[in-house]
């Protein structure tokens, strides 16, 4: 297997995985219902748009979904993820949000984020490139200037004018994969619903721990926890100087979803996991164009696989170890795809 073939197979698996995640959020009106984790729409959006540059259909379906469901996104979390990921992400998200704004989107919601994207990737440093690439990584032909989409062009990305053919579907609100949306509907988008979600999926935690996990500033999280604790439904446990916040899983789950323990979705740190997948994808993408030795290619691939493995282990998912290094590069690539299939749950032959 050449590294180019490996890249294409990895892309297939990532794209299929992302289609499945978005289906749970109502894209195409489907919901596989197979996933047993809580979706994180902000992290999912950022990673999906990166990968969907090679899958235009997914890219445009996500845009249609955003037009209908954009109000459910937490702009503070999105801001933090964009800042963390840097200029290429800012460029891509900037184009998408500009498109939403130009098509009747809420300026109060999107304008500040667009400004942030502009700041992280200023116009003066942009050379226009095609937004989409084929599966082999070759850029699509550039649209003539008069036919190029102005929103994306503003961020140095060329694509034909986007016409959404079919309106997106409302996100299905449920207490499984979309528990986050249920809580946002209940408490509003922001810290409260993120904190309650974290406490419903953990035994309890300190404010800093919660803040790091949900991607919000710890002082704000601390204040929100103090407010929530006044309800008497979010509780405080003191051990010396250590203060843990927790809630009664029994009461809360009975209220939110009176179902058995087994069907409760798990928490995953999707920001870290998608960052690890992004690292893997970017590494493989760069290696296909690199003249590094076979050894270095295998070694760098191993670095990325270990990162993915450690993020899943940290989240409590036992996915085993990535393939041992020291194999021939072909065998290493073959075994790493098998390893990724365990994570991505792909059904490729």
């Amino acid at each position, binding site marked *: 297997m050449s590294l180019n073939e490996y890249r294409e197979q990895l892309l297939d698996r990532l794209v299929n995985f992302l289609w499945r995640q978005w289906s749970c959020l109502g894209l195409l009106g489907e919901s596989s219902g197979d996933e047993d984790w809580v979706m994180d729409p902000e992290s999912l959006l950022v990673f999906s748009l990166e990968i969907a540059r090679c899958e235009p259909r997914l890219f445009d379906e996500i845009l249609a979904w955003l037009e209908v469901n954009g109000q459910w996104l937490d702009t503070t979390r999105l801001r933090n993820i964009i800042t963390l990921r840097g200029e290429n992400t800012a460029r891509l998200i900037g184009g998408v949000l500009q498109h939403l704004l130009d098509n009747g989107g809420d300026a109060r919601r999107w304008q500040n984020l667009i400004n942030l994207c502009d700041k992280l990737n200023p116009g003066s440093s942009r050379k226009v490139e095609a937004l989409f690439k084929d599966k082999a990584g070759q850029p699509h032909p550039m649209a003539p200037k008069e036919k190029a989409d102005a929103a994306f062009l503003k961020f140095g990305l060329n694509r034909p004018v986007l016409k959404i053919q079919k309106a997106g579907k409302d996100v299905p609100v449920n207490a499984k994969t979309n528990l986050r949306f249920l809580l946002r509907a209940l408490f509003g988008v922001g810290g409260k619903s993120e904190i309650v979600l974290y406490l419903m999926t953990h035994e309890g935690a300190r404010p800093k721990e919660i803040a790091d996990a949900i991607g919000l500033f710890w002082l704000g999280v601390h204040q929100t926890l103090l407010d929530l604790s006044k309800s008497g439904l979010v509780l405080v446990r003191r051990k010396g100087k250590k203060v843990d916040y927790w809630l009664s899983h029994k009461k809360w789950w009975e209220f939110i979803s009176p179902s058995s323990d087994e069907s409760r979705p798990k928490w995953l740190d999707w920001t870290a996991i998608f960052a690890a997948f992004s690292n893997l994808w970017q590494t493989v993408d760069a290696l296909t164009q690199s003249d*590094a030795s076979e050894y270095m290619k295998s070694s760098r691939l191993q670095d990325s696989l270990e990162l993915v493995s450690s993020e899943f282990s940290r989240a409590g998912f036992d996915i085993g170890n990535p393939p041992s290094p*020291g194999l021939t590069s072909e065998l290493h690539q073959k075994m790493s795809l098998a390893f990724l299939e365990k994570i991505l749950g792909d059904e490729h032959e």
Partner: protein
Amino acid sequence: MVFKNKGEIDRILSALGEQLAAAKSEPLDLLVCGGSALHALHLVTRTTKDVDVVAKITGGSGDMLRPDPFPPALAEAVKKVARDFGLKDDWFNPGPASALDFGLPEGVLGRAEVVKYGSCLTVRFFSRYDQIHFKLYAAVDQGGKHYADLLELKPSPEELLAAAKWSMTHDVSEGYKGELKRILTEMGRQDVAERI
């Protein structure tokens, strides 16, 4: 994994050089002794498990500094190569760095075999002459494989005499001198033992 020959040492050190280049490390110039250096010069046939770094060479004038602790880029690269080739974590180590405190044989750098492993790693392998110095000192101190290596190097009486005189600057005790004479005699070099 153990190194059985020069080819394997070159393969592993090339990998280390590539890791350093990928990490955009500053160029490193290191002086190496021990079993790996013996292999590099095809002087022994035994296996070895590590690469012993004696000194870091800096500047155009060839100043020698202690190599420990390794800079972070080198430490990280060593870890990755260990992972990729199934080597023990300290396969590349500054173990003999303390030898530098008492001084290395005069002219050691000029005699060393220089090998470049990419743009970021230069390794200077101890010459046979300098290995005789280190091996004699180690044979007196520890015996075993060092004594066997010393025999395999087939030192001449003059080489042994120079090595013995140098080693006595590292350990000035009468006890060491006595043990040195005993080892030289066991090697059939009573003539050398009588001259120190």
